[in-house]
C-alpha cells in the first residue's frame, strides 16, 4: 500500500491527540479530542482552524495564463480582478466536473488554483494534457506553502491581531489581501475571505511552510481551536457546499453527473464570448438550457439535466447517510449523496438581538441527487436501513447573510401569527389617536432625536402640509407648441401653480443652480429620475433599438457609506449595464484612504477614472463625515477632456449647502439630488438641481429630467407637502447661515466630547472627526443594535450602523448620530457635551440616564431657525382655527 501523505501541520495534529484517518491518500485529522459536535459548534460560535494543506495549490503563470484558464475552467477568468477570488469548475468535454476549484488572483502575473486533495494529481495530469499550444507554466507549490482555514465569527479579530492590527481583507466574500506577521519577522501571509464552512466571517490563509506551525500555535493561543475533517464535513453540509465525489463527478452507478446539477454552477459557469470554445461548452450550454427550464417549473425536456442536487432534511428520528434511496409518491427518485447528523446551537432573542446559548440540538440533513422535477418543499421518503422515513426538500439548511453568525433554518419552523384586521373599528380608531398622541409627545418632547436622516418640521410647515392642496392633483407639462409654457391638466390649480413657481425660484437660489425639478416626492425618486433621464438621453439618437443602460458608473460602495439610492441593489438596479466582459454590473467604487476609510482617495480615484472611463460619477453617502472631492475630480475630468456627468446625491447634506460645508455646483457638479427632510427643514420630499443654460447643447438632458419627473415618475406629486416645502425653503434661505454654522460646530463639539468621555469616535481627529452633521461612534463589533436599543430605552434615538470594516447591517458595530434636529431645537455645544456624557455612561456602564435625558430635552422644546414673530404666530393660530386643524 502506498504510504499516506502528511501535511506540514501533521505534528501539530499528533501532539493535539487528533484521530487520524486516510483521506484521499492523506493522513488527516478527522477530529480532535473534543469531538466533531463540539468542533462544529465552536466554529459557528467562535473560530476554528482547519488544516487544508492537503489541498493542491497550483500556480498558473506565463503570457497565456488567462487564455489557458478560460479554456480549461467553466468560469469567466476575465471577471477576476487582482485581489479577488473566484469559484470555478474543471469540466470535461461532457460537461461533468473533473474537480471544483477556487482561483485566487493575489498578483497580476499569476493565478493560484486550489484543487481538492484527492484530485490534485488527476487535475495536474489533465492540465498538463490541455496545456499544449498555450504558453503557460504550471507549478505545484503545495509543499512550500501551508494552508489554514480560519473560520467563524471571531476569525476576523484573531487574524487582525496576527497581522499587526490591520483589517485582514475587505469585509466582502472573495476579497484577498497580502500582509505580514510582525511577531514572525514579518513573514508573509496571503489572506482570502473564502471558506468551506459557510461562515459569513471566515478566511483561508496561506503561509510559508517554515512558519506554519508557529502560525497555527499563535492562532490557537488567540482563541481559535483546531477542527478536523468531521466538522469540515458537517459545516459544509449545513452550508450547502458540494463535495466532489459526492455531489459532483460520478454518481453512485458510475455515470457522469452534469455540472449544472449543482446549484452553485449558476455562478461558476460562464458563456462570455471571450471564453471562446472552452472545454465542455456545448454540453454545458444544453445543461444550462435545461436548468433554466427546470427552474421555471418546466420539466418537458430534462434530458441534459435529468437529476439535480438538492438539500434534504429528515423529519423524524434517524440519520441520513450517503446511498440511502429517496422516494417521492412511492417512486424512487434518487439517493442521498451526503448526510449525517449536524448540531446547531439554540439562539436566545429575536432577529438582530439573537445570542448563542450553551444549549444545542441536532438534526439530520444532507444532499440528495434526485429527479429534476423534485422541487423545494416536496415531501419525500428516505429508505434508511430498510425503514422508509419522512423527509423534505428545504430551500436551504441555513443562511449566512446576517453576520456575524450563521442562522440555522429549521424546516418545521412556525411563523408568528399575522396581525388580524380590527374587530371593532370604532374602538380601534380612538385607540389609534391615543397611541399616535403618545408617540408624538414622546418623540417631540421626551426624546433626544439623533437620527441624521430625520428632521422635525416647524409649525408653519406642518400646518401647510395638512391644508387643502394635499387632496388635489396638478399635473402639468411644459409644452413646446406654446413656447414651453407650463400647461395644467386640471382646474382649481392656479394657487398651487404659483406655489410651485415660487418654490422653484427659492430652491434655485438655495442650491446655486439654474434649474430645479421639485415634483419628485423622495430623494430616491430624485435619483431614479436622473438615472432614467440619463438612460433616455443616451439612447435619444436611435429609438428603434433596445436602449443601452449606463456604464461604467463610479459610486461609493455601500460598505463605505454609499447610499442605497445609488447602489445596484437599490435605485440603480434597472439603469446600470452589465459589462459583457466581466458579466457583472458596470459599477466601480471610489477607492478610500487606507488610514481613513470615510474619505475618498482622490489620487487613486483618478486612476480608476482612467481605467474605466465612467459616464456617470455619483458622489454622496448616507454615512458622511466630510465634503466630497467634487472640485478635484471635475478639474481632473476637464484636464483630460472627459465629459463625464457628475451627480452629487446630497440627500443627507442638502441642508448644509453653503459656506460651512460645500457648494456643489461651484465645485462642478452637473446634478444635485437630495431629500428635503434630513438636514433640510422638511417635509419629506425630493429635489433635483441641474446647471445648464437654456442655450446649452446639453439642455435637452435637463428637459429629459423634467419629463422623467412627470409623467415619468409621478402623476400626483403630493401638493400638500409641496406647499409646505415652500415654507421650509423660505426658512432655510432666511436662516441657513446661522443654522449650518451651528450644525457643524455642534457636530465637532459632540464628537470631541464623546471621545473625551471614552467612546471610540470614528473619523479624522485633525478634521475634528466630522465636517457634517454626523458623528460615527464605534461600540464594538456586532454590538450596534443592542446599544442603540439600550439608548432608545433611555429616550436617545439613533441608528446602528456598519462601519467600513464590517460586513453589513446585521454586524453593525457603530452608531450613526446626527446633530441637525436637536440643533434646530436650540442645542448648543454645551448641551451636546452634556449629552455625550450621558450617552457614555449608558453605553459604557449601562447607567440609566432616562431622567437626565428627559430633563435635557425638556429645556429644548422650541424650534429655532423659523419664522416666529408675533404676527406670524397670530397668522398661524388663525389658519389653524379656520382650517379646523
Amino acid at each position, binding site marked *: 500500500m502506498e504510504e499516506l501523505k502528511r501535511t506540514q501541520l501533521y505534528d501539530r495534529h499528533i501532539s493535539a491527540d487528533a*484521530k487520524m484517518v486516510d483521506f484521499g491518500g492523506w493522513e488527516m485529522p*478527522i*477530529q480532535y479530542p473534543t*469531538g*466533531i*459536535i*463540539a468542533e462544529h459548534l465552536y466554529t459557528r460560535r467562535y473560530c476554528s482552524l482547519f488544516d487544508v494543506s492537503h489541498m493542491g495549490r497550483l500556480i498558473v503563470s506565463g503570457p497565456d495564463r488567462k487564455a489557458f484558464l478560460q479554456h480549461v475552467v467553466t468560469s469567466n477568468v476575465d471577471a477576476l480582478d487582482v485581489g479577488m477570488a473566484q469559484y470555478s469548475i474543471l469540466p470535461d468535454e461532457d460537461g461533468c466536473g473533473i474537480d471544483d476549484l477556487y482561483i485566487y488572483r493575489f498578483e497580476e502575473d499569476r493565478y493560484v488554483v486550489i484543487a481538492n486533495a484527492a484530485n490534485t494529481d488527476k487535475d495536474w495530469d489533465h492540465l498538463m494534457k490541455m496545456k499544449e499550444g498555450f504558453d503557460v507554466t504550471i507549478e505545484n507549490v503545495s509543499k512550500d506553502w501551508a494552508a489554514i482555514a480560519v473560520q467563524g465569527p471571531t476569525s476576523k479579530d484573531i487574524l487582525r491581531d496576527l497581522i499587526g492590527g490591520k483589517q485582514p481583507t475587505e469585509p466582502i466574500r472573495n476579497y484577498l489581501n497580502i500582509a505580514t506577521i510582525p511577531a514572525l519577522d514579518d513573514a508573509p501571509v496571503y489572506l482570502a475571505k473564502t471558506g468551506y464552512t459557510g461562515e459569513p466571517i471566515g478566511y483561508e490563509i496561506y503561509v510559508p511552510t517554515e512558519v506554519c506551525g508557529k502560525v497555527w500555535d499563535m492562532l490557537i493561543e488567540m482563541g481559535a481551536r483546531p477542527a478536523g475533517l*468531521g466538522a469540515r464535513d*458537517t459545516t459544509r453540509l449545513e452550508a450547502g457546499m458540494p463535495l466532489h465525489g459526492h455531489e459532483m463527478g460520478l454518481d453512485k452507478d458510475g455515470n457522469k453527473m452534469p455540472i449544472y446539477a449543482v446549484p452553485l454552477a449558476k455562478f461558476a459557469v460562464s458563456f462570455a464570448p471571450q471564453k471562446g470554445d472552452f472545454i465542455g461548452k456545448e454540453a454545458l450550454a444544453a445543461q444550462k438550457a435545461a436548468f433554466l427550464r427546470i427552474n421555471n417549473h418546466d420539466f418537458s425536456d430534462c434530458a441534459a439535466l435529468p437529476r439535480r442536487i438538492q438539500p434534504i432534511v429528515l423529519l423524524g*428520528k*434517524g*440519520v441520513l*447517510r450517503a446511498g440511502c434511496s429517496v422516494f417521492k409518491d412511492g417512486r424512487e427518485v434518487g439517493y442521498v449523496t451526503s448526510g*449525517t*447528523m*449536524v448540531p446547531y446551537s439554540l439562539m436566545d432573542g429575536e432577529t438582530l438581538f439573537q445570542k448563542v446559548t450553551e444549549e444545542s440540538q*441536532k438534526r*439530520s440533513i444532507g444532499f440528495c441527487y434526485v429527479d429534476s422535477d423534485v422541487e423545494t418543499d416536496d415531501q419525500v421518503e428516505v429508505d434508511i*436501513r430498510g425503514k422508509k422515513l419522512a423527509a423534505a426538500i428545504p430551500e436551504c439548511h441555513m443562511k449566512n447573510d446576517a453576520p456575524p453568525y450563521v442562522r440555522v433554518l429549521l424546516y418545521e419552523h412556525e411563523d408568528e401569527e399575522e396581525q388580524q384586521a380590527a374587530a371593532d373599528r370604532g374602538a380601534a380608531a380612538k385607540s389609534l389617536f391615543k397611541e399616535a398622541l403618545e408617540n408624538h409627545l414622546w418623540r417631540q418632547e421626551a426624546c433626544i432625536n439623533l437620527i441624521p436622516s430625520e428632521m422635525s418640521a416647524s409649525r408653519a410647515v406642518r400646518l401647510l402640509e395638512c391644508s387643502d392642496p394635499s387632496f388635489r392633483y396638478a399635473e402639468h407639462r411644459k409644452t413646446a407648441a406654446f413656447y414651453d409654457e407650463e400647461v395644467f391638466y386640471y382646474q382649481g390649480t392656479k394657487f398651487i401653480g404659483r406655489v410651485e413657481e415660487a418654490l422653484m425660484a427659492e430652491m434655485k437660489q438655495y442650491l446655486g443652480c439654474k434649474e430645479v425639478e421639485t415634483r419628485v416626492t423622495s430623494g430616491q425618486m430624485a435619483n431614479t429620475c436622473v438615472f432614467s433621464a440619463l438612460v433616455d438621453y443616451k439612447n435619444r439618437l436611435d429609438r428603434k433599438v433596445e436602449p443601452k443602460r449606463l456604464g461604467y458608473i463610479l459610486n461609493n460602495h455601500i460598505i463605505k457609506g454609499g447610499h442605497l439610492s445609488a447602489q445596484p441593489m437599490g435605485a440603480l438596479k434597472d439603469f446600470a449595464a452589465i459589462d459583457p466582459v466581466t458579466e457583472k454590473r458596470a459599477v466601480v467604487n471610489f477607492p478610500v484612504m487606507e488610514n481613513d476609510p470615510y474619505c475618498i482617495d482622490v489620487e487613486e480615484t483618478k486612476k480608476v477614472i482612467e481605467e474605466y472611463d465612467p459616464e456617470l460619477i455619483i458622489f454622496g453617502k448616507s454615512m458622511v463625515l466630510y465634503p466630497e472631492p467634487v472640485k478635484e475630480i471635475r478639474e481632473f475630468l476637464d484636464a483630460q477632456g472627459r465629459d463625464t456627468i457628475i451627480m452629487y446625491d446630497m440627500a443627507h447634506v442638502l441642508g448644509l449647502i453653503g459656506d460651512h460645508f460645500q457648494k456643489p455646483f461651484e465645485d462642478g457638479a452637473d446634478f444635485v439630488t437630495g431629500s428635503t427632510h434630513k438636514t433640510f427643514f422638511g417635509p419629506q420630499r425630493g429635489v433635483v438641481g441641474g446647471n445648464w443654460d437654456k442655450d446649452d447643447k446639453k439642455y435637452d438632458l435637463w428637459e429629459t429630467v423634467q419629463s422623467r419627473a412627470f409623467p415619468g415618475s409621478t402623476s400626483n406629486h403630493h401638493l400638500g407637502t409641496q406647499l409646505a416645502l415652500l415654507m421650509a425653503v423660505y426658512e432655510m434661505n432666511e436662516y441657513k447661515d446661522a443654522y449650518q454654522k451651528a450644525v457643524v460646530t455642534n457636530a465637532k463639539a459632540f464628537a470631541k466630547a464623546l471621545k473625551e468621555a471614552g467612546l471610540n469616535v470614528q473619523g479624522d481627529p485633525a478634521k475634528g472627526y466630522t465636517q457634517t452633521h454626523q458623528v460615527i461612534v464605534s461600540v464594538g463589533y456586532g454590538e450596534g443594535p443592542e446599544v442603540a436599543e439600550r439608548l432608545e430605552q433611555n429616550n436617545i434615538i439613533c441608528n446602528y450602523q456598519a462601519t467600513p470594516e464590517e460586513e453589513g447591517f446585521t454586524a453593525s458595530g457603530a452608531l450613526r448620530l446626527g446633530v441637525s434636529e436637536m440643533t434646530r431645537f436650540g442645542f448648543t455645544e454645551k448641551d451636546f457635551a452634556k449629552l455625550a456624557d450621558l450617552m457614555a455612561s449608558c453605553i459604557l456602564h449601562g447607567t440609566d440616564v432616562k431622567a437626565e435625558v428627559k430633563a435635557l430635552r425638556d429645556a429644548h422644546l422650541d424650534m429655532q431657525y423659523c419664522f416666529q414673530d408675533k404676527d406670524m404666530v397670530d397668522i398661524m393660530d388663525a389658519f389653524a382655527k379656520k382650517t379646523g386643524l
Partner: protein
Amino acid sequence: MNFPKELKYSKTHEWLKMEDGVAVIGLTDFAQDELGDIVFINLPEEGDEFGVDDVFADVESVKAVSDINSPAGGSITAVNEELLDAPEKINEAPYEAWLVKMEVSEEADDLMSAEEYEAFIESEK
C-alpha cells in the same frame, strides 16, 4: 481509557455484566471513543430474542453507522430508553449508559477479561 475489572468484553466491543442472573450490556470505552460523537441509537424492544453475535441494535455517530452485536443469547427484559433522546450519554459514561438487559439462555464462549480485552485492542491497532 478505562476497562472495569468486573466486566466481560467481546471482540466487537460490547461489555457484559451479570446482575442477579440478568446480563446488562453496553458499549466499551474504546468503542465510544472510536465512534466519536454518538448522535442516534436504535434499540430493540422488550421481549425480542437474540442469539450470540446477532445484531440487536445500531448506533450512529456523526461519522458512520455501526451494528451492535449481542455478547450473549437470550431475551430482552429492559431497554435503556433514556438513550433514545440522549445517545451522547454513551460517550460521557459508557459503563453507566447500558443499552439493554437480557435474560441469558446462551453464553458466548469467547468473552474476555479486562486485561485480555486491553491486550486485544493493542493487537488490533
